[in-house]
């Protein structure tokens, strides 16, 4: 599964996107927990003020995801 990161989250993790394997019936929250286990910068980047999208639609942590989905984590928006 492809996971994308934007803004502060991209900078803190030093990562714009990763490919990761997910188990069946994985949730977005499960993906977030797995990513936070990667180290302190991941923990910091993904612990607060995080929105998530699945296939470019905003979702919540309970959303289930599978291999072919695109998941993204980003902070609240500040454009315009």
């Amino acid at each position, binding site marked *: 599964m492809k996971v994308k990161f934007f803004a502060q989250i991209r900078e803190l993790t030093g990562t714009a996107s990763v490919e990761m394997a997910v188990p069946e019936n994985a949730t977005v929250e499960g993906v977030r927990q797995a990513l936070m286990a990667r180290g302190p910068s991941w923990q910091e980047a993904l612990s607060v003020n995080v929105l998530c999208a699945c296939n470019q639609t905003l979702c919540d942590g309970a959303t289930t995801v599978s291999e072919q989905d695109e998941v*993204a984590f980003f*902070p609240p928006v500040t454009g315009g």
Partner: protein
Amino acid sequence: MFARVIEADFSQQALFDELCQHDKASQSGAVVTFTGRVRDYNANGAIDGIELEYYPGMTEAALQRLLDEATTRFNLANAGIVHRVGRLENQAQIVWVGTCAAHRQDAFNGASYMMDMLKQSVPIWKKEWADGSPTWVAAKGTDSDAAMRWLTDDKDN
């Protein structure tokens, strides 16, 4: 209707002409445009430009959804949004929203609505530069998650 995310600057005349040319009724008497520009200050003092990041694909889809929503709600004959991304100097144009409608107040309300929703709901993130270093701008309020709810699937609303 047109929704675009671009790096280059845009021409007021070209966007106005495009908006009116594709006014499907050819009868809308009212055209409103809003242009947002980089301000040279923030709450802490002078700034030296901004930098905007976006989510290719999702951002354009959110802008298009905003156009659809405003068109229905305010009975617009046509509408467009153009948002720049990347590094932008002070006073540079950032965003343009345009509406055509038969009635003046619809054109005003449609443009105002799109800007309100855009600031809350479209995946774009802003850095401000000052003294040579950039700072991410914090979102206003703590309810951005709620504000973005309309971007989720209808079944979730």
